[in-house]
C-alpha cells in the first residue's frame, strides 16, 4: 500500500509523459505535476511550443502556373503517342 502511494520520481513521470500528452489526458492534473516545479515547467514549455507551432509556416498558395507545369511534365512523360510512363513493378509509396 505504501509502495502504491509513493511519490513518482521525475524520471518515472517523464517516461510516461509522451503517452500522457499524446492520449489527450490532462497531464497538468497529474499528482506529480502538483508537487514538482521542474516537471511543471517542462510541461508548460512543451504546451507553449505546441501552441506556438499552430502559428508557424502560414499556408503558401501555389502559383497559378504550377498546374500548367505539372500538366506539361506529365505530357512529356507520356510522349507524343500518349503512352504512359512505365510503372515500376510493385511500386507502392512507402516512407523508406
Amino acid at each position, binding site marked *: 500500500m505504501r509502495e502504491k502511494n509513493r511519490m513518482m520520481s521525475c*524520471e518515472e513521470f*517523464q*517516461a510516461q*509523459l*509522451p*503517452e500522457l*500528452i*499524446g*492520449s489527450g489526458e490532462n497531464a497538468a492534473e497529474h499528482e506529480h505535476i502538483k508537487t514538482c*516545479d*521542474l*516537471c*511543471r*515547467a*517542462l510541461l*508548460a*514549455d*512543451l504546451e*507553449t*511550443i*505546441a501552441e*506556438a*507551432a*499552430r*502559428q*508557424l*509556416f502560414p499556408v*503558401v498558395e*501555389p*502559383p497559378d502556373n*504550377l498546374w500548367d*507545369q*505539372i500538366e506539361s*511534365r*506529365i505530357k512529356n*512523360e507520356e510522349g507524343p503517342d500518349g503512352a*504512359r*510512363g512505365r*510503372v515500376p513493378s*510493385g*511500386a*507502392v*509509396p*512507402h*516512407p*523508406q
Partner: protein
Amino acid sequence: MVGNIAEAEDLTQEAFLQLHRKIGTFRGDSAFSTWLHRLAINVVLMQLRKKGLSLISLDEAMEPAPEEGPGRSFGAPDLTLAGAIDRLALERAVADLPAGYRLIFILHDVEGFEHNEIAAMLDCSIGNSKSQLHKARLKLREALRAHSQQEARL
C-alpha cells in the same frame, strides 16, 4: 518541410508526377488521402536525402535513442520559456531539427494530424509517433532555451 518555396513547388510537381506514375498501384488498402500523403512524404524525404540534409533518417528517428531518454536533467525552473516564444527562433529551431523529428512535429503540431493518421502515413506505431513528437518538442525546447540565454547575454 524544405523551408524554401521554389523547392516546395518543384516537389509538388514531382509528387503529382509520382501520383500519375503510381496511381495504378493504389489498391485501396488505406484511404486514398493516406496513400497520397505517404507518396508526397516519400518525395520530400528523397529530396532531403539527395541534399544530404537528413541528419537523422526517418528510420533512425523512429528508433528509441537511449541517450535522449527521460532521465536527463531539464534545468532550473527559472530557465523556462515563460509562455512566450520568439516565432522566428522557433521556425529556425524547427528547420534545424533532424528530418524525422521535423516531419512528425510538422504533421502533428503545425498541420494538426492525429497520431493514428501519422502512424498510417509513416507506417509506424501510434506509440512511436507519440514518443517521436515528444522528443522533437524536447529538442525544440532545448534550442529555444539556448536561444533565449544567448539573447539575455547580448
